[in-house]
């Protein structure tokens, strides 16, 4: 929550702070309503249930005024499409009732191909005054593999349909030819058509609400409030930056590889440069462009930076161009954080999560103690099982959380999504009703949290077996090699693990990325996700907390004696009093 104005400092505020705050609320009400309508009107589970979609309102100069981002990865990622539209068309070439579509990473500054954007110019007094924009993650846009997100794709041409910025609605007339063309490049054309129609309708609603707001307040008042709001947001963030000591602070986070088999671990480096109220994030020194699909294109990089800055400096800061303008970013071309055409980018969420870890690591040197946090699992582990059932083919896909890093004063959260993603799990009962699969275990992974004065969060074990022959397993993960480091003497979190036929004589370890491995009836797969790093010297851990961990089976007695010392473990158990 924003705190009060620092004492003794000359107050700096907008000319009319009240009009600005009222306007900001009305603008948010509009983007929230657009978000509600998009979630209601879309069909696919990914957009509707997992809310993998975002909406925004921009001005005619392409500045973001407000955004409702359900996934932090989308923060700022709508920007790229608006900039591209303004480069491609002049405002006087747009007509009321037009709407545009795009998805491409290189042609339209996207972050990966499945995110399809719709942009609609909003007319006031006969001229374009705003753009209503939204994006949705479409669960398939073609390419060789279902889901269009293979980690081992080598170029963007293996990642599905490429849509440059183009009109999809002309003067109120939806271009059905184009709609069908897009839809039939997907494995689920009916879903694509329903979702895209919803995306078009959402912008129309947003345009109507924006026009109503202008009709009530007058365009001059609205434009004044916009300038005030953007200036305020930038001023507020700069006040946070100015409160940090000047200097250069470096951080890093390692990845298991660059997406293709046989690679060595690679590094992501972040340097935070603070000079007065100026902030630069410099990623020089990060690994070369990935051979696989782990590349972070420019707009994905920006979204990751905005997410990290907001999370670390001001979680309630409005998401608009005021925030974006206060953060400068540098990434050398030809690296994983600024890839050259035709790099593959579909699995950028994994590397963006590791990159967030690098940024958090850099900021750790400059943040107040209560904001410091050991590294988290920083991965997006995914399980995909496909095959045949009575009514045709099925595809089960899920991403799984892991352990969060411990913080000064608090153990890390167990079993949670981190950084740029926050999607929920699928209930085991829903999964078993829908697919010929059985969930054998869904549990925390004991001993996966790094030991420390505050313990790292535990990862998740998900064990699933097939009830039919002919199922195919595809899995990907991160942290099989490079774990989450601890902080201030805290120990690292546990590794990720992928096992086939677990608990049987045939049990064996699978590589990080496994594609289309056959499973017969009764064969199981077990994924264990990484834990979070510990914070502080384990010798300082509260004895009651240590005893509770052992009695709860979150830490085994053997691991506790190894990390905390046998004498302290014995003392903790002897002095234990159950508080609940």
């Amino acid at each position, binding site marked *: *929550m*924003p*705190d*009060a*104005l*620092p004492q003794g400092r000359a*107050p*700096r*505020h*907008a000319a009319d*702070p*009240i009009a600005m*705050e*009222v306007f900001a*609320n*009305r603008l948010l009400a509009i983007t929230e*309503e657009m978000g*509600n*309508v998009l979630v*209601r*009107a879309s*069909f696919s*589970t990914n957009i509707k249930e997992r809310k993998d979609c975002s909406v925004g309102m921009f001005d005619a100069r392409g500045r973001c005024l407000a955004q409702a981002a359900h996934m*932090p990865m989308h923060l700022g990622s709508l920007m790229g499409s608006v900039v591209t539209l303004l480069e491609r068309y002049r405002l006087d070439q747009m007509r009321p009732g037009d709407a545009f579509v795009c998805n491409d990473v290189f042609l339209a500054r996207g972050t990966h191909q499945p995110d399809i954007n719709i942009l609609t110019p909003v007319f006031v007094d006969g001229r374009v005054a705003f753009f209503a924009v939204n994006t949705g993650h479409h669960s398939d846009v073609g390419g060789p593999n279902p889901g269009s997100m293979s980690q081992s794709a080598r170029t963007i041409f293996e990642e599905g349909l490429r849509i440059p910025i183009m009109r999809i609605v002309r003067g109120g007339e939806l271009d059905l030819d184009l709609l069908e063309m897009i839809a039939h490049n997907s494995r689920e054309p009916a879903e694509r058509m*329903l979702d895209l129609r919803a995306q078009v309708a959402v912008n129309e609603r947003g345009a109507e609400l924006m026009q109503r707001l202008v009709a009530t307040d007058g365009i001059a008042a609205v434009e004044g409030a916009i300038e005030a709001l953007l200036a*305020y*947001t930038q*001023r*507020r963030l700069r006040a*946070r930056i100015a409160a940090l000591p000047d200097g250069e602070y470096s951080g890093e986070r390692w990845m298991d590889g660059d997406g293709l088999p046989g690679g060595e671990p690679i590094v992501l480096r972040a340097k935070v440069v603070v000079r007065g109220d100026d902030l630069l994030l410099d990623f020089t020194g990060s690994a070369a462009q990935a051979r696989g699909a782990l590349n972070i294109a420019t707009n994905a990089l920006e979204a990751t930076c905005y997410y990290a800055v907001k*999370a670390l400096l001001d*979680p*309630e800061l409005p998401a608009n161009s005021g925030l974006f303008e206060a953060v400068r970013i540098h990434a050398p071309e030809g690296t994983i954080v600024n890839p050259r055409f035709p790099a593959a980018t579909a699995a950028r969420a994994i590397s963006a999560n590791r990159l967030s870890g690098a940024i958090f690591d850099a900021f750790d040197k400059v943040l107040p103690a209560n904001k410091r*946090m050991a590294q988290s699992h920083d991965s997006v582990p995914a399980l995909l099982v496909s095959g045949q059932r009575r009514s045709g083919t099925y595809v089960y896909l899920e991403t799984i*959380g892991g352990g969060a890093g411990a*913080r000064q004063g*608090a153990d890390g*959260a*167990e*079993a*949670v*999504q981190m950084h740029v993603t*926050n999607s*929920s*799990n699928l*209930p*085991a*009962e*829903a999964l*078993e*009703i829908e697919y010929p699969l*059985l969930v054998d*275990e*869904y*549990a*925390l992974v004991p001993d996966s949290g790094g030991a420390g004065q505050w313990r790292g969060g535990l990862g*998740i074990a998900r064990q699933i077996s097939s009830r039919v022959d002919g199922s195919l397993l595809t899995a990907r993960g991160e942290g099989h090699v490079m774990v989450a480091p601890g902080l201030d003497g805290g120990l690292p979190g546990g590794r990720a693990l992928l096992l086939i036929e677990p608990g049987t004589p045939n049990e064996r370890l699978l590589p990080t990325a496994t594609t289309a491995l056959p499973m017969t009836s009764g064969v199981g797969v077990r994924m264990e996700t990484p834990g979070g790093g510990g914070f502080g010297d384990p010798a300082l851990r509260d004895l009651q907390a240590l005893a*509770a961990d052992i009695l*709860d089976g979150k830490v085994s007695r053997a691991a506790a004696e190894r990390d905390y010392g046998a004498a302290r473990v014995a003392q903790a158990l002897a002095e234990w009093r159950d508080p*609940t």
Partner: protein
Amino acid sequence: MPDGQARGAKRLRIGVDVGGTFTDLAMMDEATGRIAFHKVPSTPADPSLAIETGVREILARNDGAAGQVAFVGHGTTVATNMVIERRGARTAMLTTRGFRDVIEIARQTRPHLYDYDVQRPAPLVPRRRRNEIGERIAAEGTVLRPLDEAEVARAAEAMRADDVTSVAVCFLHAWRDPAHERAAKAVLRRLLPDAYLSVSSEVLPEFREFDRFSTTVLNAFVGPRMATYLDRLLARVRGTGIAAEPYTVHSNGGLMSVATAALAPVRTCLSGPAAGVIGAAVVAAQAGFPDVVTFDAGGTSTDVSVVAGGQATSSSSRDVAGYPVKVPSIGIDVIGAGGGSIAFIDAGGALKVGPRSAGADPGPAAYGRGGMEPTLTDANIVLGRLDQAALLRGAMPVDAEAARRAVRTRIAEPLGLTLEQAALGIIRIAVANMGRAIRGVTTERGYAPERFALFAFGGAGPLHATEVASECAIPVVIIPREPGTMCARGILLADIALDFVRSEIAPLDATTWSRAAALFDGMAAEADAWLAGEGVPADRRATLRAVELRYEGQNFEVRVPLGNALPPLAEVLDAFAAEHARTNGYAIPGREVELVNCRLTAIGKVPRGAPEPPPEGGSVEAARIGARRTFFDRRSGWCDTPVYARERLPVGGRVTGPAIIEEMSSTSLVFPGQWATLDAEGNLIIRHESAAAPRAATREHADA
């Protein structure tokens, strides 16, 4: 009717809403329709004490006798507070092997996208008391592994040694086949005869294990102490000489007996605000407004919900202190904006109001209890919108100078504004916040707020109602009598009701529909037995049916109400397409439809008595009790504003703004350019001067 006979008849009905600060009461005389209101301080250590005091006082003040009381109903936050304060029973859990962490992993999401200070609450049952048992039932009902009863017995012995007093039994797919849960319950009952047992297939027989387990665990956690509270309540009510059994409102706005509440206390978690919405739905519909947004603004928060076609809208996913509770509930959105919301200037120089609240202690600066920060209430006092001498009819003195000082030094001077501009700014920002919540709650459910009236209550609702309505382009405001006690009055308007559910997930064809019919018959029999147990005579019993359906490939359901009997399948499919189109904007002709849940609500109609006859005579002029200088907006500046006593206003009388209308529990504002009138039921209706005459507008609405 001879006087003595009338005094002896059971004709008084009392509703009690237990809040954190006050316990509100409403009492209706069925014979005359007259309603009386009363407020006593709450007694958090034993909430039933304030109930007893309040009941005795409201009877005494209105010349009533305990023997005349036919009904007592109450809304309580006892269970909710137990969860918030984590003061429930020492609870253990039995669950399927491999699944003891379901309640800890939750949805694997973090509660705030950016703020890592916000964390999921720790499970109510620690991992060491979550016992895994060998057993497994598959989704289609096949027993993959029989229940290991010996293992249940061993777990029970361990629980006894561990002083466990309550147990949640949560097995996978128990919604499909409860046999293993029943067998485990029998073992527990035998070995732990005094423990409270909460079984998932009884509490919530629906699929999706995390929601079911969470609800069942919460039920176990609050069960034993809730039973103690209900026993004490029963004794206190009996102690007053009232023979009627007290009822409790549950989250869906229905009433249930003490016995039912003790079995399923989790259903009472959201009871107070639900009663307010039920009452609002009834009162607004009587006034000719079937479609309203309810706006219940109190000291620290504001509750908003949607009533469409005279029915409160329900929500399937609510949470209590961060724990999902999936019992049928009225859909209420809560925002952190109320009279106590604190105004401050943030690091970027913006003026913000809330969500931090001064609460009841220290409260607003004007309360003189040490509050130094300006609140929304202080802004209203500065502008003369609230009385600058005292509130609650003189019961609470006000330090207006303290309010002015707080607004001036903390807001006006730092921002270079006049005192009035600063106070007005605080109100405008709070109004924009509240307006945003109303837009959210309506558009989320597929409604446009412009088509609704605003039904304002709570202590601070009527004060801001007209501005909030303008913010949302809502044309009409309705303010019921004594808006500060609307939740207590709502209890008098609720019916006895309980919800039943069965999950049945299959393509909706003729075979499935006949299976559904059998499930509905089973639930109807249970419902009838329950209503009989609640003492509802047969001619007052009713049932309502609904199904939840989805298109093949969807992962969410749309509820289709079916009325009191099952229509033919074709009609159900048509109704689903229409409802899907209304809520989602489209239907998909030809796509396969799946049945997911069958729901049945048992209703015991409660007599509501005759409406109160309108007061006779009087005039607007005679209702005027004074005047004060009040600041409405920059255009009109300070106005000499007449103040009216609400209870003296005549039915149909027209009050032209600017005007202030006061009553015991609240203050209503009529702005310049608006006018207010009192309808036959005593509701205040406020509109813009330019709006159509009230009669015509009411007709328009009824036709819509």
